[in-house]
């Protein structure tokens, strides 16, 4: 079971003061939460790496958390930042299968829906969102993505570039 925001906030405040037991709980809960958060938004074989990188970022930047504020929006901002960073790196085209067992319904919880990655993608123009989805999330080549969605190859490249730039600028956008 994933702890609620209030519990995580309290535990994180204790962790900032050096409480190892509270910190272990925070990290364990975040690990589960992040795996669900990134599901279907990155190649499944990269989810573990991305969760790990995000937890390490959480560790390095733990002083930036303000216990007077909700915990999950802070974690989500770090997660989105790492996710965009990951999308910038290319990976092999054969790592394309998405794992449905990890999928999470973003409409199931109003708070999660507001901080989800889907919400971020929804702010992109359709052409850019499609190009990013095909090339950076599903891992298709530019040519394959072009065939799939009908955009020309140069347009796919431009849309991926512009889409990544916009995503980077809207990490904290609700």
């Amino acid at each position, binding site marked *: 079971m994933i702890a609620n925001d209030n519990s995580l906030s309290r535990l994180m405040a204790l*962790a900032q003061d050096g409480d190892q037991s509270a910190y272990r709980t925070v990290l364990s809960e975040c*690990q589960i939460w992040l795996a669900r958060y990134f599901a279907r938004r990155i190649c499944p*074989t990269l989810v573990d790496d991305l969760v790990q990188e995000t*937890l390490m970022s959480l560790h390095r930047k733990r002083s930036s*958390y303000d216990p007077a504020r909700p915990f999950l929006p802070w974690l989500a901002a770090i997660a989105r930042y790492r996710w965009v960073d990951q999308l910038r790196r290319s990976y092999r085209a054969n790592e394309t299968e998405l794992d449905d067992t990890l999928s999470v319904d973003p409409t199931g919880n109003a708070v999660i829906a507001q901080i989800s990655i889907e919400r971020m993608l929804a702010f992109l123009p359709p052409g850019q969102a499609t190009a990013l989805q095909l090339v950076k999330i599903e891992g298709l080549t530019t040519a394959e993505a072009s065939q799939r969605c009908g955009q020309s190859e140069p347009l796919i490249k431009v849309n991926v570039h512009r889409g990544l730039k916009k995503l980077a*600028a809207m990490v904290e956008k609700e």
Partner: protein
Amino acid sequence: MRTTFDIDELVNDLQPVRRLHIWQPVALTALMTMIAVFSIASVYGLRADIMAGHMHPMAMLRAGVLLLLGVATMLATIATARPAVGRNSTGWRWALAMAALFPMTALVLAVIETPVSLEALHMTLGMYCLRISFISALLIGGTLTLWLRQGAPTSLTQAGWLTGLAAGSFGTFAFSLHCPETGIYYIGLWYSLSVALSALIGRLLVPPLIRW
């Protein structure tokens, strides 16, 4: 790809941390601005009207606007260090719009009163203004950037612009207390240029320094 991740490594590495507080960068920025003001005052001197206790209305107005823009952009810069989805700090844009009234007024007057003489722009004094404001901005912006590195800014480009704007505003404010010129063309051109250049330099230099 690593398939297992040992949480214990991070737990064992845990040390108590000091939470980021807003007063730290505010105090640091205020201190650096005061150092810039005192340095300029001791090397070049303050405006005669300030020394006499009867500050020129235009000098007071521009100093107030620069201070307000500096405070608004500094607070927005500080906010970027503690990220959160849904955080909204766009109030600084209103301060920027207000400050833009100076160059806009100068532009409108220039169109109405064409031709504007080059003398009204005080080119030599303007370059001097840019140089001193820039050095002050470098001191303030450098301090703010160093503090920002402790935080977790997720929008590096915006953090860069904001740092540059804050530093430029405070740096130009420091110079304005010495600057003898109060003409609208001069302020509209050189003060705007000073803040804009600082913002641009912040945009270019700050993001690579705060990336994490």
